[in-house]
């Protein structure tokens, strides 16, 4: 995955709570592969468009000042629902690299971490303050520094955030988890050998007669 260290980019405020992954990418697009040339158009497909397919001007992601946005500041429970990693892929297809929210769906959070799409948890009131600033200064930028674990708003105010040290390390280095895990092959083998003795009933390849 692409490493993430620092990012300064336009941020778009999304005031909705409980934005589920069905909204980020409707299920009917899940059958499409990531290399599909239309992949970016699946992003918030049904909220961005009228029934006739035309773009809705009142939906903030369609508005001019946010055309180059790479950061979303959201509200509670961003990315809840389905485990579809496609929700992260379509964010990336639209150049988004970071979502800041008070809380995330746990699976979506992990999916972001596996793809260089940084999810940042900030307190609800800080997210609300950032969204207000972004509404008042449409097109303003936010700076995210993963090393220092800080978010700096358009007014210069800085917020610290927590992140699991392992996930931070993988994100900053752009590490492939499978490769990393293979370094522990000897531990795996030793564990499995012992575990097979203790839980022998779990290692029957065929259904019991």
């Amino acid at each position: 995955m692409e490493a993430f260290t620092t990012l300064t980019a336009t941020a778009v405020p999304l005031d909705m709570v409980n934005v589920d992954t069905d909204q980020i990418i409707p299920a009917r697009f899940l059958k499409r592969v990531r290399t599909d040339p239309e992949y970016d158009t699946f992003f918030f497909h049904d909220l961005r468009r009228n029934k006739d397919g035309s773009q809705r001007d009142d939906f903030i992601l369609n508005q001019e000042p946010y055309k180059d946005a790479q950061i979303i500041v959201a509200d509670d429970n961003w990315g809840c629902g389905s485990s579809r990693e496609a929700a992260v892929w379509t964010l990336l297809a639209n150049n988004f690299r970071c979502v800041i929210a008070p809380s995330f769906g746990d699976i979506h959070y992990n999916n972001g971490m596996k793809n260089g799409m940084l999810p940042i948890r900030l307190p609800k009131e800080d997210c609300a303050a950032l969204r207000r600033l972004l509404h008042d200064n449409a097109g303003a930028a936010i700076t995210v520094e993963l090393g220092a674990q800080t978010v700096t708003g358009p007014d210069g105010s800085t917020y610290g955030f927590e992140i699991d040290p392992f996930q931070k390390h993988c994100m900053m280095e752009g590490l492939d988890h499978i490769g990393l895990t293979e370094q522990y092959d000897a531990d795996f083998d030793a564990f499995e050998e012992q575990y097979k003795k203790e839980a022998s009933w779990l290692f029957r390849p065929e259904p019991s007669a």
Partner: protein
Amino acid sequence: MAGPQTMFDKIWNRHVIVQRDDGQCLLYVDRHLAHDGSFHAFSMLRQDGRSVKRPQQVFATPDHYSPTDVRTIEAIENDELREKVAILDENAKEFGVPHFGIDDERMGIVHVIGPELGITQPGIFLVCGDSHTSTHGAMGAIACGIGASEVAHVLATQCLWQSKPKTMRITVTGTLGFGVTGKDVILAIIGQISAAGGAGYAIEYAGSGIEQLSMEGRLTVSNMSIEAGCRMGLIAPDQKTYDYLEGRPYAPKGAEWDKALAYWKTLPTDEGARFDREVTVDGDAIAPMVTWGNSPENVVQVTDVVPDPSRESNAERRQSMLDALDYMDLKAGMPMTDVAVDRVFIGSCTNSRIEDLRLAADVVKGRRAVVPSMISPGSMQVKAAAEREGLDRIFTDAGFEWRHSACSMCVGLNGDSVDPGIRTASTSNRNFRGRQGPGSRTHLVSPAMAAAAAVTGKFTDVRQLMEEK
């Protein structure tokens, strides 16, 4: 010496291969379920030239894209659907993974067939690339949904990096009332703790309200943990669990059963074990529930009215309520029992097991569906069992469509979808905008409540219909 432990800690600790200084744990995966949406992960594997490390611990079935009107790959008319079902078949063959294909009598929704075949057992760590994997926690296992990259990781390594979640115990007290099911219990819980209430936690459901549920009812409760924001929802195994499991095809037999059982009995949370958060839910007060909005937390008792957004003090929440009422075409203050439905769906990994179908059939028997109504049993074995009991006749005599098994209208991937503006009483798990098809309006209910809606054409307190008999 270790002090009193939670069930979650006992199972977690048993699966730790490596714990890094930063707290990350590499966990051994006992069972991995794959489905026809897992093609991304198999592609990643192929791209990197990797194989499946422990193919005999992976089980696959095409639940998401299989149509409910045919049972062979060749008979699938839609090219995209046929391709997805066929790709799983090919991937399973290429990587040596056991596969219950569309024409196999054991085919079904992964979260139904796991327990049904005895693949899911107490004390295991089970993963699947589907958020409703939390279902399997009802058998006393750690089970969670993962994304495609993690699926590829587990296929390649049979283990997974995880940071340990916090623990929450939700104790449902008292005695569940007449007509109250597992579905109503979990909807009441979500209504109380919110759709984000479980984020970052592993939940253990406990108390008399959970113990009295059947295995099927418990699976429904754990299934919707993810709708409470939580990836993992466990229930302690007890005699009901063991009775359910004994004799299932992949369950241990003979001396192995005894050995397993001795271990399973050590799993329940020790007296005095500490949870990071404790929640109590009054089981006596739970009634049949209906959702009204576009989040599972937008839920009321069937005897209630549609809530009034003007009484919500938080501005974002008020706006989200207004948006939901607009989308759902409902008015604040309207009694839920005045809301007419256009169609009914009984199925999904939440509510499609044999007990669910029996409950629905009890309500339907001797009545007629007055709106289009459809049933997709959770597995082909559930379907066969229902047919042996004559339930299919009760439904078809009442005008229901009796289909094959798949995820079907819960997610609308297989051609079974809801048209724009159509209001559905659904036994599934998500009432998100467009979930059952673009513009669809979903209300989540129990199978008994869905049956009541089918025969009355509106939301009806099923307890009245049950008393009428």
